[in-house]
Each structure stands twice: as C-alpha cells, then as structure tokens.
C-alpha cells in the first residue's frame, strides 16, 4: 500500500522576539491511502502546526511533506479542513456554506450539480431539512456537521481536522464520531485528526500517533485493532478489555511525552 501522506524529517521553529521557538523536531509520519490517523500529544506541542504544514499553508524549515507522491510547496485543491470552530459564514445558508469549496475548486460546475452534491452530504450527516437555515439558527453540533460536509464536498484526498469535536458536549461528540464513520463508509478519504481525547483517537483512528512534548517528534505509533471485526465500529467496543489496554498504553505514552517537556511551557 502506498503512503498518501508522508512527512519526512520535518523540523520547524517559529521566530519570536525572544528567539526561535522550536515546535517540531525531526517529525516522521506516514499515512497509507484511505487510512485515518489520529494525532495526540501534550497541549502546545505543535499539533496545529502539523495541520498547517500538511495543508501547504506553511513550509517547514527543513524536511519534506509529500501528498500523493508530490512534494507540498503551496496549498492544493485536494485538501479539506475542519477546525474546532466550525467557521460558518453567517451570511450564507447552510447549503451555501457547504458549497463554498466547490466555488473555488470547480467554478464551472453548474449550480444545480453543486447543490445536489451538497445535499447528498447534508442528508448523510442528518441535516436534511436544515439546508436553508442560517448557521446561527443551528446548534453547535449541527454547525460542526455542516463544517464536516464542507470539508469533504469537493472530494479531497486528505481531510485535515484540528480538534473538530473539542468544543462539543460528550453526547454530541459521540454522535459525531459515528457520523464520521458513516461518512468514511460512503466517501473514502485519508484523514489526519488532531485530538486531545484518547477514546476519540482509538474509536476513529486506524493508527494513533503520539507526539512528544515541544519540540514534537514522533514518540509512539499505535496500530489500532478495534474489537468487533470489519464493518462500522460500534461505540460499545470502547468498553472492551482490548480497548482498555490500548487506552492504557496511550495514556502511559502521553505521560512519558509530558515528562520529556523541559518544565512548564512559557507563554
């Protein structure tokens, strides 16, 4: 299997008035095509920098990011992004929000076709009937669903998510995890998910990458063997001994990662 995302020896530092602040140190990550990679690590360890590098929004000081066998030098149309903030455009309806990437990526696509494509996704995430509402009329969970639809409406190779479920309550979050699996079953894509939630990383990820404290390097990679075999993963699986073991391993690794941090982070 080929690696769709390949991050090779990436090192990056931010320039600050007090001198360079290293955030990534010789980071290596491989994500095979169609796989879902969850990235966890201590807070402030450079996870968001990682998403911006993969999206081509910035260039690393050294090292390379490859997507689909091509070196990433600038933003590409084959990427979808979702953030903790759903970033809805309040002046557009939900449907017009979801269509937005198509206006950029496929300007010649007829309007009816765009809308049909958006409706297909909205139906999949349970937002049918809300397409003509304004974002302010929807709950936080619904806005995040719409945001996920917008991230994949143009059929990107790679979906990059930076803690998309972080601001939601526990029940809504679990709902959205299941929606995520339903989406993947219909729309194959390779995904990178930044998260703070270990259960989320195990439930959604095919592999869980643990980053060390800042500057971040790949500390540990867990190959997720989710109980219950093939088919859509069931939430109950999280409460089996197999999952408990994986979570314990991850927790241990995170603790080691935090121990590596040279004292409390300076803000």
């Amino acid at each position, binding site marked *: 299997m080929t690696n769709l995302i390949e991050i090779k020896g990436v090192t990056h530092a931010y320039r600050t008035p007090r001198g360079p602040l290293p955030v990534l140190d010789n980071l290596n990550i491989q994500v095979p095509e169609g796989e879902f990679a969850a990235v966890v690590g201590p807070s402030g360890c450079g996870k968001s920098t990682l998403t*911006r590098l993969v*999206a*081509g*929004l910035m260039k690393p000081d050294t090292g390379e990011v490859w997507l689909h066998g091509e070196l990433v030098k*600038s*933003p*590409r*149309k084959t*990427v*979808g*992004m979702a*953030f903790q*903030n759903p*970033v809805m*455009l*309040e*002046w557009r309806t939900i449907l017009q929000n979801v269509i*937005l*990437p198509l*206006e*950029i*990526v496929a300007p010649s696509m007829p309007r009816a076709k765009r809308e049909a494509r958006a409706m297909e996704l909205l139906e999949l995430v349970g937002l049918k009937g809300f397409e003509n509402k*304004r974002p*302010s009329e929807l709950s936080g969970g619904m806005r995040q669903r719409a945001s996920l639809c*917008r991230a994949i409406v*143009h059929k990107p190779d790679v979906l*990059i998510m930076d803690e998309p479920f972080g601001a939601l309550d526990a029940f809504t979050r679990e709902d959205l995890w299941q929606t995520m699996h339903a989406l993947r079953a219909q729309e194959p894509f390779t995904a990178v998910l930044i998260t703070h939630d270990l259960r989320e990383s195990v439930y959604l990820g095919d592999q869980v990458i643990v980053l060390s404290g800042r500057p971040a390097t790949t500390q540990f990679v867990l190959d997720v063997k989710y109980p219950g075999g093939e088919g859509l993963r069931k939430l109950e699986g999280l409460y089996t001994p197999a999952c408990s073991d994986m979570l314990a391993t991850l927790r241990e690794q995170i603790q080691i990662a935090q121990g590596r941090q040279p004292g409390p982070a300076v803000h």
Partner: protein
Amino acid sequence: MDMARKIGIPILAIVLFLAFWEFIVWVNGWPNYVMASPSDLPDAYVRFWNLFLIGSWQTLWRTVAGLILAVIFGIVLGMIMGFSRVARDGLYPLLVGFNAIPKATLVPVLALLFIGEHNFNTVLMAFLISFFPIAVSVGIGLSTLEPEYRDILRSLGASKVTIFWKIALPKTLPEFFGALKVSVTLAFIGTNLVEIISPHGRGLGALFLSGQTNSNYPLMFAVLIALAFLGIVLYYAVVALERIFAGWAERPQG
C-alpha cells in the same frame, strides 16, 4: 400590530418631546428671542416653505455626495490598514490627529484654497468629517478576521482577492454599517459648518444665518428641526440598506 408599534412608538416619543419643549417655554415664560416654542414653528414653515425646500435639497445632496466619497475613501483606506501592518502603524497617528482637529477651523482654509467653489467645499467638508469612522471600522474588521476563515479558502488555493470578496468583505459589513450610521450625522455637521461659517446663500445653514441676521428666532429653530428631520431620514435610509446587505447579522430577539 407590530408595524403600528414600530411607527407609533417613535412618533409618540417625538410628540411627547415637543409637548415637553412647549411646556418648558411656557412655564418659564421665555420670549421668542430666548427660545422659540414648537407652536411658533408652523408659521415659519408656511411663510418660507419654498426656501426650506430649496435649502433642504441643497443641504441633502451635498451631504450625500460627501458621504459617498467618505464611503469609497473610507473602505479603500480601511482595506489598506486592514491588510498591512506597516500601513496601520503609519496611518493611525495621522488619522487620529486629523480627526482631533476641530473641523470648523478648516472651513476658512478650504474657502481660501478653493475660492468660490462653494459646492465643492461643502461636499469636501462633509467628506472630511465623516470618513474616519468608516476607515477605522473596516480596518479593524479586516485585521481581526480569524485565521481559520482565511485558511478554509487559502488551503484550496484561493487568491487574496477571492478571500476578500467571499469572506473578508461580507464579514466586515455589520461593522461598516455601524460606522456609516455615525458618519451620516457627522456629514450633516460638516455640510452645515460650511453653510453657516462661509455662507453662499445655499442650504439650510444659510437659511439659519438669515434667520439670525433678521432676528427671526422661530425661523432659526425651524431650520434646526428641519436639519434633525433630514438626519433622521438619511439615518433610516442607511438602516434600510443595512437590512438588505447585512440583515443576517441581526439575531431574532427571544
């Protein structure tokens, strides 16, 4: 019911205000030359109705022209300040300093610079006094755009122009209209400054001045009320535009 309330309450407020004014003048027994009362005004309007119409029109069109200039210049300046840190750091002290100058002192300067160009001077003053809030609000709106908003389009390879039209501009519209409401009333002040300080017999300001020279005090108060009326009309014109272009920002009241 809703419509009746929307129109009825403001009208009731105005009627109450006029009644209070009439009462104060009556209680104090003020003569006309100290303070005219509302009941003196209709006479002034009836006698000089044609002057009021001509003056109002002259004041109105010059104010609106200045305002349009202020909108164009304010948006361009706001864009420059919103997108460039250097421009922001460089322009802010200049703008604040300029805004702090009492505009009345500029009237003779303009009058000397462009001798006899009364219309031009008046429009220019309306513009000078009213562009500042627009420039500042557009600048702040653009510079405080959350990076995620930019990133969702930038990650798709969208150009800066596209990001401006699709995201930055519409997102700044509520702030822009807020500033425009302030600018509307400022622009009237600018127009009237020139009409009163450097009169050419045009506009409501000149009518005010002739009321003063003829000791026709009710006429002076009638002009003030006419100015207030024009201000209200223009303000609600901006509110109507805001409904059309930025109505989405208005939350339904619970």
